């Protein structure tokens, strides 16, 4: 084995070990690396009791209710398997609407998720408004929301 080949082998083996180590660490941490839990995770109690967590999912169609004080909103977050009622007092992001993916930070309180912060999740679809209108007119609209 020449010195070049030896250096190549050391580098290759070193990086392979590192890759395996990283994969193991990330697998072990996969729950913690996750930015938000889905309503199903919450139902399966993966998220822990009373902990401050982020809950992510779709705003259920027809679930958004503005309360009397004008800044409190009640709605339901769903992943189409489980649903969680949410209450939030504060200003909602522009993209917040029924059918939109959102992530709420807060904690569970007697079956209701009390949110302190609501972020809109943007999906990976980009198109001009005319195309969106044309898709809806043709009945090929697959997004849940109605902008």
């Amino acid at each position, binding site marked *: 084995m020449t010195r070049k080949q030896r250096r190549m082998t050391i580098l290759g083996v070193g990086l392979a070990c590192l890759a395996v180590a990283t994969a193991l660490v990330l697998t072990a941490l996969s729950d913690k690396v996750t930015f938000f839990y889905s309503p199903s995770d919450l139902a399966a109690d993966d998220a822990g009791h009373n902990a401050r967590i982020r809950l992510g999912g779709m705003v259920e169609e027809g679930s958004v209710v503005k309360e009397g004080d004008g800044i409190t909103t009640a709605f339901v977050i769903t992943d189409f398997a489980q649903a969680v009622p949410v209450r939030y007092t504060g200003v909602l992001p522009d*993209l917040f609407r029924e059918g939109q993916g959102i992530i709420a930070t807060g904690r569970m309180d007697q079956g209701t998720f009390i949110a302190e912060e609501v972020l809109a999740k943007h999906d990976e679809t*980009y*198109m001009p*408004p005319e*195309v969106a209108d044309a898709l809806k007119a043709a009945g090929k609209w697959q997004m849940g929301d109605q902008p």
Partner: protein
Amino acid sequence: MPNFLHSLASPARFQRIANAVLPWVSVLAAVLLGVGIVWGLVFSPPDYQQGDTVRVMYIHVPAAWMATFCYAVMALLSASFLIWKHQLADLAARAASPIGACFTAIALITGALWGKPTWGTWWVWDARLTSVLVLFFLYLGHMALSAAFDDRERGGRAAAILACVGAINLPIIKYSVEWWNTLHQGASVFRMDGPTIDNSMLWPLLLTVLGFNMLFVVLLLVRIKSELLARRIEVLQRARASGRG
């Protein structure tokens, strides 16, 4: 191909090829960036959800891709420096890291500017954003480490090892949006089922992406050339000093 790459390690031959290529690539970069940016920022349509905020994409996406691509180039150069001891590979890796750091900074800043109106926040610690921030620190570490030793060779080796180890971050960045729930959306262009960007937005995006690629080549070649000249000056000065003494 390996023989061709090894032959590039000769500084004289590299300089000849770089001088021949540079004017063409510079013109190409200017045209692609000029057309792509004007098309993207002015003439392309607004998005149905984000409105004009979508135009950040024409800078953010190419910058983010180049941030990772530049790191991949730097890691390969570093590996070839560690294995074959090509001095030019060391030089090129040192030349690449500040360029990559700039692309990463552009991606992080434009991402924050887009995130505030779209998500409602400048920054979150999700897997994608955090792994790109780590990439930025890897670039800074590489720059610091390569200049940290009086002996250039030792600094080069330490930095090259860091560059190779840090390459593990690249698949994490790429797949972070698939492996974990993140606030950052998944890939729109490279997907199994085809791009989810309308063609009227995809074309200007592809132009700016190609333009950023060419810009990277130009910057890298110019930086390597000037570094080669700097080393030659150093050698000449040393020869003159020892001749006098």
